[in-house]
């Protein structure tokens, strides 16, 4: 992927703020929020007209589901990618439904060979329809399955090798998982194929009940920015994107968060 530098997740609530960022070169939009017919949201159309890249980010494909991915959802993602002239799309290493019941959120997979096989098959079904590459994002997991056979790095590397997909590394998820599992986040960075990163997510969270929650509604904590810097020292990803999904702060606060990501990564400020 091109070096896009610092971007932000486009949401209708902050469309005005995003539209006025002078240096912005890429945004992400929740794929399911964009129609595959009718007009593209005006804010996104305006960004496209200015040459800003728009990456559709799927949240409901359920690539890690044991059941085959829903062909209608794949078709939708592919057509949204085409309509937005996206350089790539992204989705999660997770499942969101099973047995016809929606979980309502991204759920972790067991780190087992059976789960890798299921996910690889679904990614292949999706890639067959997509006009562009897909990047896969490991999630923040509040709990783990009891019978993991692979370490997180082995699990992710095997998935990336077998699918030839790119990696969307969420630094806040790396932080959250390490903090909640009591593991070392830098050890994971050192074990991952960093050259496969298409872009990174950066987001805020908060602790509740002894668990760090990746909320996307709180400020980006300092340790997450430190991890961004540590990653960039090892290998700087082509782009880093701030995700904010609610409790939107004042524009100055959002600008400061974007500037902090720029400072930690060495990319130019976009504000």
């Amino acid at each position, binding site marked *: 992927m091109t070096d896009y530098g610092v971007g932000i997740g486009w949401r209708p609530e902050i469309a005005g703020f995003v539209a006025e960022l002078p240096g912005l070169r890429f945004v992400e939009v929740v794929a399911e929020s964009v*129609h595959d*017919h*009718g007009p593209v949201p005006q804010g996104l159309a305006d960004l496209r007209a200015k040459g800003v890249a728009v990456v559709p980010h799927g949240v409901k494909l359920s690539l890690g*589901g*044991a*059941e085959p991915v829903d062909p209608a959802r794949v078709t939708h993602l592919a057509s949204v990618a085409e309509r937005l002239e996206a350089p790539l799309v992204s989705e999660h290493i997770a*499942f969101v*439904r*099973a*047995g016809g*019941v*929606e*979980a*309502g*959120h991204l*759920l972790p997979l*067991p780190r*087992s060979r*059976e*789960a890798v096989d*299921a996910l690889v098959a679904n990614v292949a079904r999706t890639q067959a329809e997509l006009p562009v590459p897909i990047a896969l994002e490991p999630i923040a997991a*509040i*709990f*783990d*399955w*009891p*019978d993991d056979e692979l370490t997180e790095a082995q699990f992710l590397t095997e998935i990336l090798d077998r699918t030839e997909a790119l990696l969307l590394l969420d630094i806040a998820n790396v932080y959250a998982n390490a903090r909640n599992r009591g593991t070392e986040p830098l050890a994971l960075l050192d074990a991952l194929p960093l050259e496969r990163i298409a872009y990174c997510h950066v987001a805020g969270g908060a602790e509740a*009940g002894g*668990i760090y*929650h990746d909320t996307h509604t709180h400020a980006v904590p300092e340790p997450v920015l430190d991890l961004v810097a540590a990653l960039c020292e090892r290998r700087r990803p082509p782009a880093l994107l701030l995700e904010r999904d*609610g409790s939107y702060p004042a524009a100055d606060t959002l600008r400061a968060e974007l500037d902090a990501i720029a400072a930690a990564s060495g990319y130019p400020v976009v504000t």
Partner: protein
Amino acid sequence: MTGDLAARQAALVATLTSGAPVPPGFDPRLVGVARDALLRKRAGDVARAWPMLAAAQGDRWRTVFLAWAAHRPTNGSLRDGWDLARSLAPLTGTAAAELAAREAAWRYDGRSAPVPRGRLSGWARRRRFDPLWESGRLWTRLRSKG
């Protein structure tokens, strides 16, 4: 443990959405934390789709929603809020108006996706109208006329 990922995923979803027992081997405390986080997220999503319904409950919104949703898997925010609004009837004030506007515009049987009523429906089929997508806009329009 081997095999049957589908059944194990379904069991976990049932735990998180319907109050089924925690599957063997999982940390019950952490699964409980995930379940609560999921319900809070749903409460926020439904409050965005049904702003007047949520506002009418004030500080009790989360409690009211969680009590209702704890054993009901989501059917999407539009239908979840609709089912909850009907269960809380009779509503008053803007929450009642919000429900009435939607009942007037859509036929919803409580079991499958709402369909637009009357003259709207032909137009909706031509546009491949999506109720969840459009309902917010429609509501605003109906309100401003009223």
